[in-house]
Every structure is written in structure tokens, then in C-alpha cells.
């Protein structure tokens, strides 16, 4: 494949995704950046955790993305009495065939929308989180593969709210990104209030990209060029997070890989052939936000996010 051909494909990918973004943006108003981040995360084959107040459109975002990418979606509403079997499925005795037959649970779907994941008990949470890591589930001694591609889009309420079981750090780490939607700005809110019901709009939308195309693009993420100079920058960031007294803990190698993947996906999504430090800086906040903690004493002001502190202090080599 020649460079120009690659260019054309890159442009093609970009224009297709621009349409996806445009469409999603019509439904979820004023959240273009978040949508782009979520899409890059999906291109990098990562799971997304959306954390925000109830009613800001978390569930809608998950639905929109699944629909536009042509993926099957199942929703699991996590509650405190949810059992692992409710997620994974159960074997039921079939009287006709005189044998047990397996009834797959909602996890057997290309996109699993785990709503309010922190309302369930840790036992139920772990059933889902196993699936996220292994891309397979073991039920009654039998290992079953999950469909491909497999995404979990989990939403959670801020853990300060009543009746929540906060996800432990090890399980948070399984989510490549944590996104916050936040309230829409005035203009977007006005339009939302004026416009039609979101659910209706969602029902009208159809897939813009086929599953095959999606997997093809996922494979192409890996081929986005990464220069040594960029790896130097990424390593400096990781090193700094480990050495600086500003942070309570360092970034793991896994988070480093996640940053690189997402930065590649982000670059691809924007039609670039190589990753730039800016790409890393853009995806960094949502990747390290739930992994790195600031020391309480440090940080110039409370408004500084972890990523801001990190980015500001590490020069680009």
C-alpha cells in the first residue's frame, strides 16, 4: 500500500467518523469532545466508565455509540440485589431434551451497558469485570467466548451518593477511560429543552459503520506511527508520575499502554498518520484521572486535575 493510498484510507476513516460524531452530537448536545474520546477508546478496544450525576445523558451516550457503530447492545441495570447469574446467564433444565440448556445473560452482547455499576455488590461487579479482562466467561465449569468486538460501557454515580459500592482501584484500572459528561452549556441545554425526545431520535438512527469496518479500523490503530521521540515523552510522563511527590502513586505500565493506544486511536480519528505529544495530552486526563491521585497538600489549586499537574510539569523532549 502506498503512502497516498494510506492517506486516502485515513481520510476515509476520518470522514466516516466525522459523520458518526456529527450524528451523535445531534442527539447528545454540546459534548463533542467527550464523544470523540469515547470513540477513540472504543477504537483502542478499551472499556469506558462514564461517571456523573444521574440524568446528564450517560445511558443515552452509550446507546448512541452502540447504535451508530452497528453493535448489539444489552443493558444491565445494576442494583444491590443483582446476582452474577443475572449478568452471565444460567443453565435451565429442559424437560423435553432432558438436559440443561444454557440461557446466556446480557453479557453476551457486543456492547454491554452496565448502568450504575457501583450500586451492585462487589460480587456482582466482579462477574462483569472478569468478563472485561478475559473476553470470556466461565459458567458452571464451561468457558464461553464473548462476542467480538466486546465493549463495556459502565456508568456510575459519584460514590458520595447513598447506596453505592465504590469500585476498588484494581477494578477501576480495567476501564481504559473514565469520562465525565457534566452539565450541558446554556445553548445546548436550550436546544435540548426545545428539541424532541432523545429516545425518539435514537430510535430513528441507524448504523453508519458496519462491524467489519469497525474491526478493520481497530486493527489500523496499531499501525499509526509512533516515533522514539514520542515514546520518550510518554516515558517521561510515566517516570515523573512515579517520582514526583505530587502524586500518591505512580502510573502502571498498563496505563502507559492505554495512553499510547488511545493516543493512536485519537490520531487516527483525526486523520493523522503519526502520534503527536498533543494527542497524548488530549487523551491523558480521561485515562489517568481514575488511576492517579494527587497528594492533598500539593497541587497549586483544587481546580487542577491530575493530568494538568502532570502535563504542566513534564517538558516535551
Amino acid at each position: 500500500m502506498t503512502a497516498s493510498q494510506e492517506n486516502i484510507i485515513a481520510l476515509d476513516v476520518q470522514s466516516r467518523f466525522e459523520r458518526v460524531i456529527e450524528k451523535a452530537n445531534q442527539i447528545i448536545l454540546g459534548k463533542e469532545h467527550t464523544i470523540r474520546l469515547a470513540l477513540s477508546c472504543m477504537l483502542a478496544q478499551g472499556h469506558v466508565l462514564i461517571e456523573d450525576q444521574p440524568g446528564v445523558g450517560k445511558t443515552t451516550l452509550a446507546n448512541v455509540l452502540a447504535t451508530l457503530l452497528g453493535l448489539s447492545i444489552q443493558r444491565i441495570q445494576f442494583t444491590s440485589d443483582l446476582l452474577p447469574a443475572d449478568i452471565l446467564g444460567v443453565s435451565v433444565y429442559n424437560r423435553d431434551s432432558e438436559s440443561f440448556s444454557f440461557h446466556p445473560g446480557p453479557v453476551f452482547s457486543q456492547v454491554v451497558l452496565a448502568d450504575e455499576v457501583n450500586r451492585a455488590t462487589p460480587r456482582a461487579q466482579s462477574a462483569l469485570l472478569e468478563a472485561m479482562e478475559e473476553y470470556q466467561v466461565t459458567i458452571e465449569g464451561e468457558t464461553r467466548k464473548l462476542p467480538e468486538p466486546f465493549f463495556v460501557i459502565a456508568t456510575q454515580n459519584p460514590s458520595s451518593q447513598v447506596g453505592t459500592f465504590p469500585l476498588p482501584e484494581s477494578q477501576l484500572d480495567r476501564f481504559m477511560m473514565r469520562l465525565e459528561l457534566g452539565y450541558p452549556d446554556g445553548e445546548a441545554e436550550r436546544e435540548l429543552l426545545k428539541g424532541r425526545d432523545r429516545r425518539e431520535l435514537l430510535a430513528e438512527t441507524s448504523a453508519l459503520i458496519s462491524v467489519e469496518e469497525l474491526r478493520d479500523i481497530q486493527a489500523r490503530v496499531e499501525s499509526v506511527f509512533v516515533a522514539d521521540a514520542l515514546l520518550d515523552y510518554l516515558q517521561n510522563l510515566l517516570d515523573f508520575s512515579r517520582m514526583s511527590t505530587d502524586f500518591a502513586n505512580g502510573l502502571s505500565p498498563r496505563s502507559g499502554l492505554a495512553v499510547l493506544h488511545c493516543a493512536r486511536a485519537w490520531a487516527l480519528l483525526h486523520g493523522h498518520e503519526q502520534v503527536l505529544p498533543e494527542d497524548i495530552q488530549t487523551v491523558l486526563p480521561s485515562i489517568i484521572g481514575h488511576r492517579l491521585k494527587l497528594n492533598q497538600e500539593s497541587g497549586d489549586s483544587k481546580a487542577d486535575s491530575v493530568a494538568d499537574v502532570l502535563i504542566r510539569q513534564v517538558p516535551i523532549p
Partner: protein
Amino acid sequence: MNSLKSTLLALRADLLWLSAGLSLAVVPHAQRIPLWMPFMFLSLAIWRLYIEHTMRGKIEKPSFMGRLGRQIIMLVIVVGVFNTYGTLVGRDAGVALLVLLAGVKLLECQTERDYYIASFIAMFLVLTNFLYSQTILAALHMLLAITVIITALVNLNDQSHFIGSRLRLKIAGSMLLQAVPLLLVLFVLFPRIDGPLWGLPKDALSGSTGLDDEMSPGQISQLSLSDKVAFRVEFFDEIPSPSSLYWRGPVLWYSDGVKWVRNKRRIEAAAVKVRGEPVKYAVTMEATDKNWLFALEMPVTLPDRSFYSHDMQILSRSIVRSRQRYEVSSFTDYIMPEVDETGLQNGLQLPQGRHPRARALAEEWRNEGKSSREIVNTALSMFNTEAFYYTLQPSLLLEDSVDQFLFDTRQGFREHYASAFVVLMRAAGVPARIVTGYQGGSINPVGEYLVIRQRDAHAWAEVWLGEEGWVRVDPTAAVAPERIEAGIENALPESIIEIPLGIRNNPAALDLWRRISFRLDALNNRWNQWILGYNNKRQNLFLNYIGFGDVNWQKMTTVLLLLSALVLFTVCFYLFRTDNRHKDEALILYNKFCEKLSHCGIKRLPSEGPRDFARRASSLRSDLSNAIKEVTNLYIETRYAEKQERILALKDAIKRFKPESSPAT
């Protein structure tokens, strides 16, 4: 709080290494300072580790009580040291204070800075050991301690804890190895200056043992318990027979009945008449607080900066404060005349009213009409045939030591025999004097040299026999001739010589023991000669040898600086080269571009990516936006897409990029 905790947990390894380093630095001092000091240091260190253990890294602002406690400890230390030494400065008090304060510093170690300071204190403590001892062992100890301290510093700088203890030790070791070239350059070339600059603090010599310039009974016997080396002698030819190995020291003339002192007349010695072949040799003398240089009787050449006293002792113009090497040649066959015959009167002085019995005996001899020679022989045969004993532990002589020794106890050591003999001679009218010095020495077969230890200290007599001049008479030889023939080791009780109990009766083991100690002494000798004895004379010789020609200190300093610079530049070159791996050409070019923009007041932030910067710069200077875009795209291509072929285009674009400091209107 979490991160502080982890930082401190991290510091634990530093703390352990640092405590180990400090303790190692204290170890050699522990034997010299009062026992409570090392004990207190150890308690403070253990206390600190205990705090670390119980607090598990929690950090707390020191409470009022904690601060008060520290002040109290400080006060105890200062008072204690002052009480022991009467001062807080000087070598001994200073070291003691440093040891204790190191303990307190360890106790209050909290921040990174504290750790650094404690490390440097440890290094200084290690160094202070050299004020006391410059042996090979001290050097090895220093090497070990410094390695441990550097490991502590490596720990301190490795906050990510990615490397294990063994690797840290390795890093510290390789850092020390990297310092070797600089060490060699500094050792060889650093100007050695003779003089007080290199002198030790005044109290450094307080403990040195050796001959004194006066003699009273029991003094030399005390020395004979000391195994310390007085000097070593390398003979250029054969070693003379043991019976002629008399190393001349101070000559004593006057007696008050107990004590003998020197005659410090400032006149030149008369020329010695010599026969036979000279013996040539080099002496390496240990430090004393005197200006005496020892030489075989009779020396005929003088070392540099020295002169003869009127009674043929070699005196240096300066005190021998450090180990010194000099070459002398002597004749063992000689006639020593007296400078002026009136001086012989001094050789007849006796304290008034003392030694009546000795005087009576000598009177008797004189009345028999004996010649001087016959009187000498009579006295010697008296020592030889009557029941005189040679012993290290003579009975205490309280009143008239000479009379008591001659007629009652008859047990004595060298000084007793020498002084009794001289008193007898003088009373009989024969001029006589006491010569102190060393006799014999043991041959080290490994290095083929002679070691003279303090226990070889000796006192003998010289009598004036007219034509024959001053003649050496050794009364000890009359009583214990084996002492002169075979050295003191056989005459002394075994327990004096440090041979481990188990091997004393085993000839094979004893032989092995002797051989090992010979080898060790040979090693020590080489160390003294080449490392410690590398003074300005040796330096000149060495530099001449490797072709520097005539050397002066200016030239030496220049070469020293040049070589040091060379070593440092080599290191820098290596470091920069590895750094350049990351700094490729594109970045250097881009930095130039950024610098040009910064002249227009647009500064790139260190964490600003090229695209973001280009966007910001273009929005500030829309007139430059095209050029900025061009450069940025080329830079991204060369650096982040690694298209090296675009580097020339980038170079060109940046060359063309000449922004005016304000937008063109």
C-alpha cells in the same frame, strides 16, 4: 498523606544504608573515645530505626517535647565531651563531638536534605580516621565505608525503587571505580609541600611512644613491651652482624642520681676516624615528636636538612612529624675523638652525695692503680661473674637506685646496667656517658629489610680511653650476651610477644605465623614507602622518571589541572553522547525556530506540543501563520513520523524563517 507514606517507606532502605555507613565510620573511633560515646551513638541509631519501625513511615511535625528532648541530648553531648577533653575543638574532642552529633543527626533525619547532610557527615567521619591511622587497614575500611555511604546516596536518588540492593551496591562500586582515574591524577600530581600545611593537629602526636631525651630507671623497660615499629632499614649491601647493630640516639651526660639528661652544647662534632668499608642503607622512620634521626654507629654522611650534635647524634632541622625516609652510610669500625678535652670533665660528673657505696668500690679499683681499660674490664667481669640478673621486672628501687641495684637487688634491665656502669666509671675517674638508642632489630626475609621496634630500645655506655677515643661498652652484653646476639625476643618472657596461645608450642604453626607476619610487615613497608611516603622528593623523582624533566609546583599544578580537565571532559563527552541519542537534529532545529519566535514575544511552554504551539503562535501573529505552519509540519514529519529525508527541508524552512519582532503593518 499517602504519598508521604510511600516516600518514607522508600526512605527506609536509605535509612538502613545510611545507618550502616555511619556506624562503619564510627567503628575505628570507638576504641579511641570513651566507651559511652560509641554506646550513645549506637543507642541513637537504634532509636531512629525503632521510630521508623513503629511509625511505619508516618511523618509528624516534631512536637514540643520532641524538640526539647533533642536540645537536652545536645546539651548532654556538649557537656560530656567538654568534661572528657576539656575542650570542644582539636582532633580528639572534635572527632568525639562529630560521632555523637552524627547520632543526633540520624535521629532527626526526616527530609531528603537531612539524609544528604548525614551522608556527608559520615564521609567526613571516615576521613577523620586518617588523622589517627594511615595503615592499609584504615584505607580498606575507608573504601568499605565510602561504598556503603554512596549506596545510601544511590538509594536516596532512586525514588522509583526499580533497582534492588545488589544493583545499588554495584552502582556505588562503579561510581567509585569511575573515580579511579581522577584519584591517580591527583595522587601523582597534587603538589606535596614540606611543611606545616600537611601537619596533623597538635594533639595528634600525644600518643606516640619512643625514646625520650632523658632516662630514668624503668623507662626503657616500658618501651620493651611495645611492638610498635620505630623504623625500618633497607641495607643496600649485606646486613652487618647483629652485634654491631647499635642505632645511635640521644647521648646522656648529666645525672641527678635518678634521671639522666643530655648535654646540649652547641659545638660541632670532631671528625670520626674510620676504617674498612662503609655500610650504606636507607631508614624509614615512623613519626615521633622529636628531631632525632637514628643511624648505625658511626654515621659519616648526613641526610638532608640535618646535622651532628657534639656527641655524634644526628639531629634533623625539623621535628619528624610524619614518616620520613633518609639514606645514610656508616662505618662500624671507627675511632671517635672528643671535640675538646675540657668537655671530658662533663664525663666525670656525679651527683653530690649520691651513690656512696658505688663510689667506694670505684675508689678501691682506682687505688689498685688500674688503667682505664682494666677498670672497664673489672666492672664488666663483676657484672658477668657475680649474681647479676637481666630481667624486665626488677624490684622497685626506691632510694639510691644505683647502689641498691649494684649491691642489693642485682636485678635490672638495660638502663640499670648502663647507668650503674657509668657511675662506677666516673667514680673511678674514667670519663663515661650513656648512649640511648636501639639495638639489633629483626630481619624480614620477605622484604629483606630490618625492622626496629620500640622493644629494641637500648642503653649502653661509652668510656673515654685516651688514644682510642670514646669506646662503646655494653654492660648488658656482659650479663645477657644472648640479648645482643639474638635480639630481645629470646630474652623476654614469651608473653610479651604477641603470639596466639594455641600455636606457641607448635613449631610448624609458629613458623607459619612468623612467615605471615613477615609478609604483612613487608606489605606495610611497601605501603609506607610508596603511598604514604610519596613526598615531594619522591614525587620529583617519579615525575623525572616518567619524563617530566625538572618539576616545580607551578608546572605540576598546570599538568594536574589539565589532566583533571581531560578526565572530566571524557566523562562529560560520554554523558553528552548518550544524551544526544534523544536530542536529534530535528529538535535542535526546532528549538532554533522557537527561539526566533520567542524574540517576537511568543514563547513555547516546555509542555506545549508543536501543533498547539503553532496554533497559538499563528493566532498571535497571523502574518506568520503560513511560515509557522510550514515549519511545524516539517518538524512533525521529521521528528514524529521520523522521515529523516525531510530534515533538509526543515533546515531550509527555519533558515528562511525570519520574523520581525512586531507584525508588519
